[in-house]
């Protein structure tokens, strides 16, 4: 009788709870790691986008400052009789600007670095009245700018 009482099993068997625990902890750990990984990659993507946005608008501001200085030069040159010559002379004080005579007027080209891979390329044409027109305000890849290479797209011909 006593022996029977000793061997009788009461409640769930030993070990099941441990198996449940191991399963649950593995599940929870996987969820936690996946969540943290998603949150971290989300954060790093946003960080990079935010930095790029800041870099872009910093370059944009720099380009606008240069535009303002060029317009000041044009304003100054307007008072002289020979606008183009005076303007060319005045623009020499503005760093990084290349002037070119075009039928539409004087074309000033310059760029502002966005980051090490991209630049903001600007072309502004000043007419003889000292008014300007923005021809180009475009972000470009540095490599593309250096090599002048174009993306090879098949135009349908062999």
């Amino acid at each position, binding site marked *: 009788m006593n022996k029977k009482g000793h061997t009788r099993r*009461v409640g769930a068997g030993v070990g099941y709870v441990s198996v449940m625990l191991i399963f*649950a902890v593995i599940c929870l750990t996987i969820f936690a790691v*996946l969540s943290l990984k*998603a*949150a971290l990659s989300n954060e790093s993507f946003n960080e990079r986008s935010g930095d790029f946005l800041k870099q872009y608008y910093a370059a944009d501001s720099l380009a606008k400052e240069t535009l303002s200085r060029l317009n000041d030069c044009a304003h100054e040159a307007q008072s002289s009789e020979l606008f183009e010559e005076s303007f060319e002379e005045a623009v020499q004080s503005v760093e990084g600007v290349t002037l070119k005579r075009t039928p539409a007027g004087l074309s000033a080209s310059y760029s502002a670095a966005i980051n090490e891979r991209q630049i903001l390329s600007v072309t502004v044409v000043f007419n003889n009245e000292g008014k300007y027109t923005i021809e180009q305000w475009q972000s470009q890849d540095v490599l593309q700018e250096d090599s002048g290479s174009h993306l090879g*797209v098949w*135009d349908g011909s062999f």
Partner: protein
Amino acid sequence: MKKYKNKTLGDTISTIGSMLLFLLFTGCLLIMIAVAAGAYSRISKGFDKTFGASASLRYISNKLKSAESAEIGENGTALYLKSDGVLDIIYFKDGALYENNLSADAEPSTEGGSKIFALGDMNISEDGDLYKITVMFNNEQNFTYIRR
């Protein structure tokens, strides 16, 4: 006999206690798993939104910023961008954003592009001197403005 009876009572109490503890453990386990699944689903939705709506908005705006000229087509669901002798067509079709690169003098076509993002809807409109790019993702509308 008395001893046996006592043992049975002790066993019963012990069993009830153990079962209550087991129930508590199981309850905690289920609650934890439910909370974890909920949190994971919420985080994963945010992740999808970032790599769906926001990434597509940024992609289109960066493409616009680097294009020489831009034109809206197909009632605002396509954007024709020209730069360096390449016609880049970004368009919305069948629940996704596609991109197609053609030669600048080729006929614009919204066929045969590569799928870049899965989206609910995409629309580009002109709002004064700005382009308004609107995308729908998971029934949520996101937009951004880019100067023309």
